[in-house]
């Protein structure tokens, strides 16, 4: 159910303005872009450039001041809370910077949470495969407090994938991890795109992380100032310097 041209997410002239008068902040100043299926996109930009705002609007967590978002063929701007909830449940996956696992559930229970919420029986084969992929076979019944930060984040990635969503949004998923754990998480996102045909959109500050992506969008003052292949980490660093 993608749009004809294979775009999973289409954003048209998105504007987001906070406050008014003197305190007015333009977080997004007309962003138009689209995301292809089975692709890994990274969004970068200086602090305050509107990355998170853009991602939240794309994911239906926030509403734009103007502009439209079409997600998997559905125009999401203007949907009510119930429809947005179902959309997030069935079509979206999320990975946040802080390990948003439920402390009271085991790793495996956290992993299948979106399915439990939907009242669906998890496909055990798929769950097993995910657990294997994230390398937590022997940690299934552990609680988050008994997992390392990297392990927790890998559970969060697996959770985002479990309902086979149309898009996975990740906001600085490695922001809190050391380089080894970061590499594991990024590798996982990469494999999700390559092996499981997932679409991933990731906001990051880390050039190394951006280098794992197929495409790099750079924002500045709420506008897209660069859109292309990231190349290696050094290329990204170079690009960032140029934009500064």
């Amino acid at each position, binding site marked *: 159910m993608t749009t004809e041209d294979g775009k999973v997410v289409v954003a048209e002239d998105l504007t987001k303005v906070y406050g008014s008068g003197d305190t007015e902040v333009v977080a997004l100043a007309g962003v138009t872009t689209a995301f292809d299926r089975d692709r890994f996109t990274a969004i970068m930009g200086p602090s305050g450039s509107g990355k998170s705002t853009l991602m*939240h609007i794309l994911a239906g*967590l926030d509403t734009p001041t103007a502009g439209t978002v079409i997600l998997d063929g559905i125009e999401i701007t203007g949907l009510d809370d119930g429809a947005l*909830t179902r959309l*997030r*449940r069935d079509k979206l996956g999320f990975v946040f910077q*802080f390990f*948003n696992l439920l402390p*009271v559930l085991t790793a495996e229970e956290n992993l299948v949470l979106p399915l*439990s*919420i939907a009242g669906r029986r998890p496909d055990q084969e798929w769950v097993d495969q995910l657990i294997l992929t994230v390398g937590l076979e022997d940690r299934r019944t552990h609680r988050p407090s008994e997992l390392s930060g990297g392990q927790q984040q890998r559970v969060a990635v697996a959770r985002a994938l479990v309902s086979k969503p149309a898009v996975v949004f990740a906001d600085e998923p490695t922001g809190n991890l050391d380089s080894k754990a970061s590499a594991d998480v990024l590798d996982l996102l990469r494999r999700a795109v390559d092996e499981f045909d997932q679409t991933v959109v990731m906001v990051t500050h880390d050039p190394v992380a951006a280098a794992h992506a197929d495409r790099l969008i750079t924002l500045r003052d709420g506008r897209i100032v660069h859109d292309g292949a990231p190349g290696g980490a050094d290329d990204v660093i170079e690009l960032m310097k140029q934009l500064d």
Partner: protein
Amino acid sequence: MTKLALKSIWARKVRAFATSLAVILGVAFIAGSYVLTDTIFAAFDEIFSESLHGTAVVITAQNPVKQETREVPTVPASYLAKVQGVPGVKEAAGAIFTPGGLFDAEDKAIGTKFAPKFISSTLPKGLESLTYVDGHRPRGPGEASLDKAAAESAGLGIGDTLKIIGAGRVEPFKLVGLTQLGQASFGGASIAQVTLPIAQQLTHKRGRFDQISVASAPGVSAVALKRRIEKVLPLSARVETAKEKAARSTEEIREGLGFLQTILLVFGYVAVLVGAFIIFNTFSITVAQRVSEFGVLRTLGASRRQILGSVLLEAAAIGLVGAVVGLAGGYAVAAGLRALFTAIGFGLPTTGLVMEARTVIVSVLVAFLVTFVSALVPAFRSTRVPPIAALHAFTPSPSRRRRVARFAIAAILGAVGIALVVAGLAGGGGVGARAARIGGGGLAVVVAVSLFSPTLVRPLADVAGWPLERVRHLTGRLARENAKRSPGRTAITAAALMIALALVTFITVFASGLKSSVATVIDENFAGGLVIENSDGFSPIPAGAAFAAAKVPGVKSVATIRTAEADVLGGSGGTVKVNGPTPNIEEGVDIEWLAGGPARLRHLADDEAIVSDSFARENGLEVGSKFTLLSQTGARPRLTVAGEFESKLGVFGSVLVTQKLMADAFRQTKDTTDFVILEPHADAAKVQTLLTLGAERAFPTAEVLNQGELREEREKQIDSIVQLFYLLLGLAVVISLIGVANTLGLSIYERTRELGMLRAIGMSRRQVRTMIRYEAVITALIGAMLGLVLGVVFAALIAQPLKQEGFTLSYPVGTLVGILVLAGLAGVVVAIVPARRASRLDVLESLQYE
């Protein structure tokens, strides 16, 4: 620092208010109890002094019996002439003021069931205290007046018929006047007035007075006049100035109604105790939530003392709000309780609401002490926050040593509590001391269980959560896990409800045992017959009712019992119930004989008595030994024990004597209960109809009951008291439920990020609501389960020593399950607000919430 503390309360004003509500309600109830009872006493004060308007000295008979007696002694009319001869007496007159029954032309009772109705006599103009607001004073036979309030509520006016029943048949009067006593309201009581000879005749007090009122001549003081009168009268006459008499009457009322104040205050303090749990919990949670704030303050150089001060200042502010709003609420509670008592037929006289200094002092003290003491432990915990907490998440978690200490304290408290309860039950000491031991023991056990309950929370949450999880898999599961997350928190919240529900359960189980025991006694001992008694269930009925009943076709005979109170001289020394049955009593009721037997009772002499086993035990009596009673008239009959019976729920009292002795020594000629014995083949239903038509018409205070109705009547009496207790306990339940909502609200606030995440990954608002609601249900069920167990155990403990009195416990399983279900539903109700708040959280904001 002070400013900071106040600011911090202001910032969380809604929470602070919810917390103060836990104090406010309890304090309001305590204040209200005082206001109500003080108001009642003030009203009686007013009534008594008004009723002695124009009177200088009052003469009544001394009542030597320690406790209240149903028959009040009278003075002989011959005293009057002696008094009139005393110099300085301007005017003296005898008066009657005796309880009776009042009815309209259609035999409809005037005044509510339990409110007193009086027959009084007119006094000469100078001594009369009633003012006539309409019509005139009764001038002769056939004329009567009624107090205006009673006439209005009964819809009676001048010229209507008023039927009055005293010690004989009911008699019709023409209503000729409406009266009022100053500005006082009698509550539900009604007063009918007739001329003195008529009053004496109605109450069977010919040649006697209830009191003699004396007016003094100008220039003679009441005290001087009293001294002079005392000289001409025997010692059995009590001569008092009007002031003394009013003061004594008020004092008697204070003693008589003291139990009301005590009961209300007990419920008030239970509510306060429950509130204390809530405050403790709220402070513990907020301190835990503000750890990093305290950490920052510490890095900025705030001392431990300052941190402690800021938390305690917050407690003080809540205490202040509790005291002020609670006191104001006391007025509302007093008005509400008064309306409640009136609604259930216990109308009480009132004037404007009275707020005494004592009420203010007690309320303020309670409010401050409770908040302060409850906040103390959390406040000290806040001082243990190290500056480093500003940087790291730090939870001052209870160490192993502390846990062990807690267990030890719980175990010791529990043991001491149980020992106290057992000691209180086993007896020794007065009723007050025993009640205090049982109450104190109960409190200790409750605290012990609360200290122990964090350990019980996990398994109980699993039990309570299991069915919910069957219905709603994920939300049920999360609710259960969330309830178990901070067991201490859930435990204290549940413990508050536990206290309230333990009392509800205790009362339910105990009342159910009482009802079934009464039913057993009635079924076993009054089999098949009919019973005539006063429709209020306790006042006596005229002896004429039994004679009238005996004449009804189908009735073989009527056995009656007359009752009075007496002190035992020597021996145990207490006041006991004395019964005078007719010799044929065993045709109507079974007596369980331990010594003697039916023949001894049939041929009982006037100087013989049959005693209950417990009376014999307490006074060291056996067949053949002698003992002496003291009656309200001052008579001292010396009696020989002729037999012994087994006491069953005290139906026959302690001592059985002849009715002749009852009349001579106790002046009791009215019956407490008539047992109607039927001819072998008589149709009981038909006889009952005839009795109702005949006896009830002539003696409208009497009511004919068959075995089933009698049982029902007794059950209804128990039920009405139980319902009153339920209502009073409702307050504690409400406070504990506020606690559930409060804890839930605070936990949700803590879990904002988590809720945002759940919503982000697709949890619907409805699911969030369900989850929160179930958490409340689980907490409420944990409290209910603990409360049920505790209540049942207490009931079983207390029932133990009552077994030999014929009391057996019965467990109303249906009702207990009902309590559990209701507690669960209450959880649903109190979760409405927190659940809605949680479901309305903005997803994005929650995610970014720190």
